[in-house]
């Protein structure tokens, strides 16, 4: 069985990439394939607890994060210095990594997909 990392680095509001990346993660998990997520760049805005997009602005993908544990997706990695130090307004389920851990993350998986 292959261990998959889904790397989201697009804005949740500028394209469907984050939505379709998360969909792939959920399908992998449904098929009992081990999958982790990591976020960087514009995709970090997915973590903000203070967002209420209307339908014109986009789907509220932030709400999906609380459901990840029901799919046995337990790891959502971010680089620690890219989020607020006290975790204020950040979804509490993230696993912060230091720079070295972040850099080695990508070689720990059989496959990495970027969205």
């Amino acid at each position: 069985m292959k261990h998959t990392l889904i790397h989201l680095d697009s804005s949740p509001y500028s394209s469907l990439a984050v939505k379709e990346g998360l969909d792939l993660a959920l399908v992998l998990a449904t098929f009992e394939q081990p999958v982790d997520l990591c976020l960087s760049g514009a995709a970090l805005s997915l973590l903000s607890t203070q967002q209420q997009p209307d339908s014109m602005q986009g789907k509220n993908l932030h709400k999906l994060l609380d459901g990840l544990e029901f799919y046995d997706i337990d790891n959502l990695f971010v680089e620690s210095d890219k989020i607020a130090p006290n975790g204020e307004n950040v979804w509490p389920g993230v696993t912060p990594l230091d720079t070295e851990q972040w850099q080695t993350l990508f070689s720990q998986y059989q496959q990495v997909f970027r969205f």
Partner: protein
Amino acid sequence: MQYTLLITGSPYQSKACHSALRFLNAAMKAYPDSIKGVFFYQDAVLIGNTLAQPPRDEINLTQAWQAAAEQHKVPLYLCIAAAVRRGIVNKTESQRYELDQHSLADGFQLEGLGTLVDLMNSTHKIIQFR
């Protein structure tokens, strides 16, 4: 070594579909059984729109993919959810959504992401073109 190709880049905004086709042709020429299937996701599913009419002096990429799939006997899958939301529907989906027309090009099949998971587990590597 057997590969799956995952293509996510739009045929209009990127060269993902072009590069993947070149890779497919080169790989199959050198190793005839090296690619088991091609899965199109995100905007790459637009490749399966039979209604698109590129100018006559430009490459018709949909036809080029159809020819390559026929020649190499490689299945071309479009993610059904990604395709339907972008207006690529086959006869079955057209009936399901009570539409008057369908738009899926010959040689392409609508499949769920589960098909990608199957390919993932039955080939050595996936190569993403984005």
